[in-house]
């Protein structure tokens, strides 16, 4: 078996792939265009040909009907879409990106690696993580692990033996925003709290810039600009210039932008102050979420203080972000590799896994004579990663008085995993009850809610009784949650000894659909 594993940051707008090289350092592998990151964009040229990367992104602007962007936002949902007459799911579209990344990496390194670790946002629930794993399977890759992006970012900065620290990772990517508080030490990472927003990212800053340019253009051009918003070509030009302007303002105070539509020709000057005013509400949202994360972490561990703040994600480069963190929260953020840290960290995690020096349940590995200190682990001999639950988990019960259903949470978001919550002693609700239905739910909002409709049903199973039971007969429910957030429930009827088990490996696609998708993907010709 090859002893190489790739770490893949499968991002909403950009992806990157890395490995541990011969010098035991994490290095990002450049793509065919010599770039470290590849746009997570697909363009379906024809039924059998798919383009992935920068060229697809260019094609997407001109032919959006045959293009796919931001597919990560749909992972774990039943989003279905057709391109060139064929059906695709988020899993199969992500698989195409993964396949293209791995093929390019193998070409660059001369290797033939198929083992990968793929990263996911910390707030991804069970379904989204399983969808990511299936994407890897559809790409015919051996997914040896799924690791969260903040943990990967923390690993990439090479935690050396400087003593335990509490760090906050502020990850503002192209499409999503993550905040994580974790305690790190040599060879150890323990997540304390996570939060984020799946609809907040660099794409929103781009949209704000588009609106700013449009407003200014219309104000300058007056009546000559009437109808410009209905012109696709003009909007396309606007989007391209908006992204360039946003990036330029990272380095400059003001940028001149020329826009033209029919007889209206306007030259605008957009200053950094203009952009910051137009996006202040976005920055405010990130600050609110960051503060909330720390507050929740402090509730879990009173007295916790943040020692370091790491900026991850390409959109964190904007000066307004570090200014806001400094001025509003009194934090001194540190720059990282921004858009490469996560891929590098995933490679580190993967290498530790295949060298069998990784513990993902928080327990330290026993010392053996074979374990030597690892440069890629900052000198540690092994790596221990302890995670938290991204979403609360609960079981549906019925209120005794009203008969209304509700969800009782036995495990909460940010609870440490693995864990075995206390058993639940429930009761039957009616006389002559012949069975009990056990329904497992996962929190579907940003925060817990007892309303059944606010949660997502993962699985349901019936526990039949040996004979009809009277009301208030006891039923005991035992629960185990694994390191990857996998839930196992066992419900027991104490009288008969009957029990039923329920394991929530939830996915949108079943085994056969995965194989069909794999077959579909492998028949496509990929170009990147």
């Amino acid at each position: 078996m090859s002893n190489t594993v790739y770490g893949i940051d499968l991002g909403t707008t950009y992806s990157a792939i890395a490995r541990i090289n011969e010098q035991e350092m994490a290095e990002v592998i450049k793509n065919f265009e010599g770039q470290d990151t590849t746009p997570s964009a697909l363009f379906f040229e024809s039924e059998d040909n798919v383009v992935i990367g920068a060229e697809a992104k260019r094609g997407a602007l001109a032919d959006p009907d045959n293009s796919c962007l931001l597919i990560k936002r749909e992972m774990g949902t039943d989003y279905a879409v057709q391109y060139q007459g064929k059906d695709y799911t988020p899993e199969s579209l992500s698989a195409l990106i993964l396949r293209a990344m791995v093929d390019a990496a193998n070409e660059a390194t001369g290797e033939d690696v198929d083992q990968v670790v793929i990263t996911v946002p910390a707030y991804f629930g069970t379904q989204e993580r399983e969808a990511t794993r299936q994407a890897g399977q559809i790409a015919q890759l051996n997914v040896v692990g799924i690791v969260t992006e903040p943990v990967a970012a923390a690993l990439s900065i090479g935690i050396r033996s400087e003593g335990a620290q509490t760090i906050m990772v502020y990850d503002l990517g192209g499409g999503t925003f993550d905040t994580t508080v974790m305690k790190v030490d040599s060879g150890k990472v323990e997540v304390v709290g996570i939060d984020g927003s799946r609809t907040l990212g660099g794409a929103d800053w781009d949209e704000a810039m588009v609106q700013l340019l449009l407003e200014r253009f219309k104000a300058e051009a007056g009546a000559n600009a009437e109808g410009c918003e209905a012109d696709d070509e003009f909007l396309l030009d606007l989007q391209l210039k908006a992204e360039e302007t946003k990036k330029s303002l990272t380095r400059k105070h003001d940028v001149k932008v020329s826009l033209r539509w029919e007889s209206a020709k306007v030259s605008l000057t957009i200053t950094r102050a203009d952009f910051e005013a137009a996006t202040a509400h976005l920055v405010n949202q990130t600050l609110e979420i960051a503060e909330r994360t720390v507050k929740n972490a402090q509730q879990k561990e009173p007295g916790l203080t943040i020692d370091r703040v790491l900026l991850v994600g390409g959109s964190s480069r904007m000066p307004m972000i570090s200014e806001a963190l400094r001025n509003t929260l009194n934090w001194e953020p540190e720059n990282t590799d921004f858009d490469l840290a996560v891929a590098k960290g995933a490679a580190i995690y993967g290498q530790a896994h295949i060298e069998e020096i990784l513990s993902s349940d928080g327990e330290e590995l026993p010392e053996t004579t074979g374990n030597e200190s690892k440069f890629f682990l900052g000198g540690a001999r092994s790596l221990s990663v302890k995670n938290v639950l991204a979403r609360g988990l609960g079981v549906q019960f019925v209120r005794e008085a009203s008969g209304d259903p509700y969800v009782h949470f036995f495990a909460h978001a940010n609870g440490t995993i693995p864990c075995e919550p206390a058993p639940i002693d429930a009761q039957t609700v009616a006389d002559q009850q012949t069975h009990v239905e056990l329904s497992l739910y996962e929190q579907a909002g940003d925060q817990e809610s007892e309303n059944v409709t606010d949660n997502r049903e993962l699985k349901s199973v019936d526990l039949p009784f040996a004979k009809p039971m009277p009301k208030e007969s006891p039923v005991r429910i035992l629960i185990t949650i694994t390191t990857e957030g996998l839930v196992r429930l066992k419900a027991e009827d104490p009288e008969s000894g009957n029990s039923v088990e329920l394991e929530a490996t939830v996915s949108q696609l079943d085994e056969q659909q995965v194989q069909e998708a794999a077959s579909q993907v492998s028949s496509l010709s990929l170009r990147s």
Partner: protein
Amino acid sequence: MATLNSSEYKKLVLQPWAADSTKMAVLEKVVSQLSLNPQSEEYLTLDLPGLFALPPGGLTKAQLEGHSNALRSALNKSNRLKSASALGKLLDFLRNRELFTDPDFWADFQSRRAADQQRRLMSAVSDLESETPLRTLSRGQALRRLAALGLDGLDPSLLSQHGFAVFDDLRPPVEGELSRLRSTWGPVRDKHGSDYPTVFHLMVLGRQNPPVKARCVDELSVGGKPVTSTDIEQSHAQALRTRDSNAVQDAAKFLAELKRVRDPETLRRVAFATVWERAKQQLSQGIPSVRVAKGLCSSGLDELDAVRIVAAVAEAGNGPGNSGVGVEAVREALAQGKNERARRTLEALKEDPQTVEERRELATRIEERARDKARALSDYESAMTREDYAQARSRLQDALQIDADDSAVEELLVSLPLPAPRPTLRPTESGVLVEWNGVGEGAHYDVYRSVNGVASTQARLAESLAELAFTDAEAPVGEQLRYAVVAARPGGISSAEGHADIVHLPVPKAVSAKARASDILVSWVVPPQTNGVKVRTLTLDAPPETTHVQDSTTFHMSGADIGRMYRFEVSAVYLTSGGPQESPAVTATATPRGEVRPVTDLTVTAAGSGPGLEARWSQSRGAVTELWAMPISAGQPPAVGTVLTSSEASASGLFPLRSTILAPGDHHMTARLHTLEGPHVVVPLTCGESGFLVGVATVAGNAPPVAHAAAERFGDRVRLTWTWPGGNYDALVRWRSGAAEEQVRVTKSSYGQHGAVYLPNAAEVSQIGVITMARTNSAPWVSQRVDVPFASYTGPVITYTSRIAKSLLGRARVELTVTGAHGTGSHDVGVYFASGTTMPARANQARHISTLTVDCSRGASQHHTVDLGRVRGPFWIRLFCDDGRVTVRDPKTSSLKG
């Protein structure tokens, strides 16, 4: 009776009437009506006693006469005023009809006027019903309408007796109230209207019930209960709990921003602005006002608020086809914070009776803002005298918010000192890199450095920089340095300095580690101020070791294991005022390879299965060998034993081959290579200390394979055919014959002679393969193999021997010994005769002369003799199986010919 005072009369009656276009319109209409119809009593619409300043109480005819003269005089004095002209005409009309001086006329004037008003009121109500389907008017609207209908001065609340609602005037919302929320409100309004039809649905999300009787004009409430910032917080929390969707996400973002609005009145104005905006949009689309109001009600808005808002929007000229440009432009200017522009626009507006109230209100607002700006500028002056620049900046910004176009204020702002920059420091190979944040447009920066906190050592390193970074290449080594950055605009006051400290500890440069045999030499370059260097050695299975090296720039390690990687972290040690300190470390690695020898036994063959090639060679332990190649036509490879750098190797025409090590070993290596198109020379290059050591090359490469290869039995042979590729190639045919491996080399010309290749002992032939070979002048070759399917027959087999004998008389007979095997039962086999020189290939090319029944089960032989009679040669005797299910294997061809 007091005499009419013409000045007072002018001030109290003539001038106000002249300035009021509504009143003048009414007056002129009356005069016009009377001139058309002298019998008309149109004058009853006017308050004549008031207009003519009649003293109260009954007047005699004489008194009326006198008053009339005084009026005439007063009107003449003010004949420039249009009111005087109109009133003069009216006076003349009344005098001419002898009404003005008739005391009876005045005695019941008011009662007649009241009756006339009542009549007009009923008529007005009827007119208003058709014009205002909502039956809702603001007080201002009612006054204007009544005045226009000749009911000037009538109390508008009288209309409520006729089913009209008259309420206080509603001012349109100011643009600024919604603008800061627009970026989050916009997505909710535009994309999620079905989830959240109104802003109230979001504001009371936490109450779990859809809003009813929502009010936003006089108060902000839903269902009679006020909506406060607590509701907004609860609604935000509820949004976070709700099952995730794009609508919920956008709602949560809007509520997060709305939470920042703490003032209840501002919350109300936000809600009011959203409803106004919706009504305005729908009316501009041509939707009837009644329907718009109904729509708002069905969305949860209180009915009175709904009709009031729609009526006010319609009146404000936001109905269909009415852009209401004039006052709107003033409002827009105010919303944009351009007070002066608003003032100028207002002054330029024409007199419009419809917008009198509005213009007055706008004028008041403009004046208020002007006073606020003056106060801000005054505060700025005070702050400047105190050198409180932060306060000065804040007040100038307040003034600019009122009047963004005021370039003088802008200049004052620009001239203020900028905020202090915040520098960060980083040691690099070139020196200390100082970076800082930009603090304002047009700012330039000066950089200073001082040493060990001593002010007198401060030196300016750079001035007037526009960029945000500077590298101090001459930073003193091992010292505590303070860098200060000051910002200023040209002509402006300098900012306070922002500073950062660093102890400058340059990292070692040119760190390298070279291995020779089992020795490793680490070297570096450090500044003279160092107190030696620390070298930390890391490797597998050994604890790290640290060595302090002084007075040397090298570290020597002997006895290193061949093939093991060693990592060296080198950091410089400096003696500072705070004691010895180390710089960050620089890493170098080395792997001893032992004695490097060239590879001499490289072989490259076709891969055992699948495409590609397989390379094998042996090398010394710890060595690393790369395979490079060049086309045969490119010339000679470098000589064995030559040492090359990779660029020299490339320059010689070689390129590296991508390979996958299949079975790594200490000495013997096997690797898979990709297919090479055409013949190539493959050269093994072994990594050494100073470059690649060239080994013995071999030729490899896949010639194009043969196409359409096919094999068939032909007598006792296998007939093999194929199509040759273009180019100068031979073919090597390999097969198994029983247990033995056979091969034959075939040239194009030898193939061409027979059109095929024949392999003997067809029964034993299997695993046929054809390999195309490149013609080379030297060295062995290798190419791609094409497997040719050919299955040995495994059914019943009949073999025979044949002996043809002829008598002296020319009669011939054939003696056959027939053996059946590998089958069950008996099979018929035919004996066939053919004349001529060509052996028959099939039964239908010969004549059947006899049938033999052969038992194939036991492998026993049978003898048969067939009399051929008198025949002339040449002829052939051959056996074919009649039922086609048996393989008949022929003996030597010569024995079949007679």
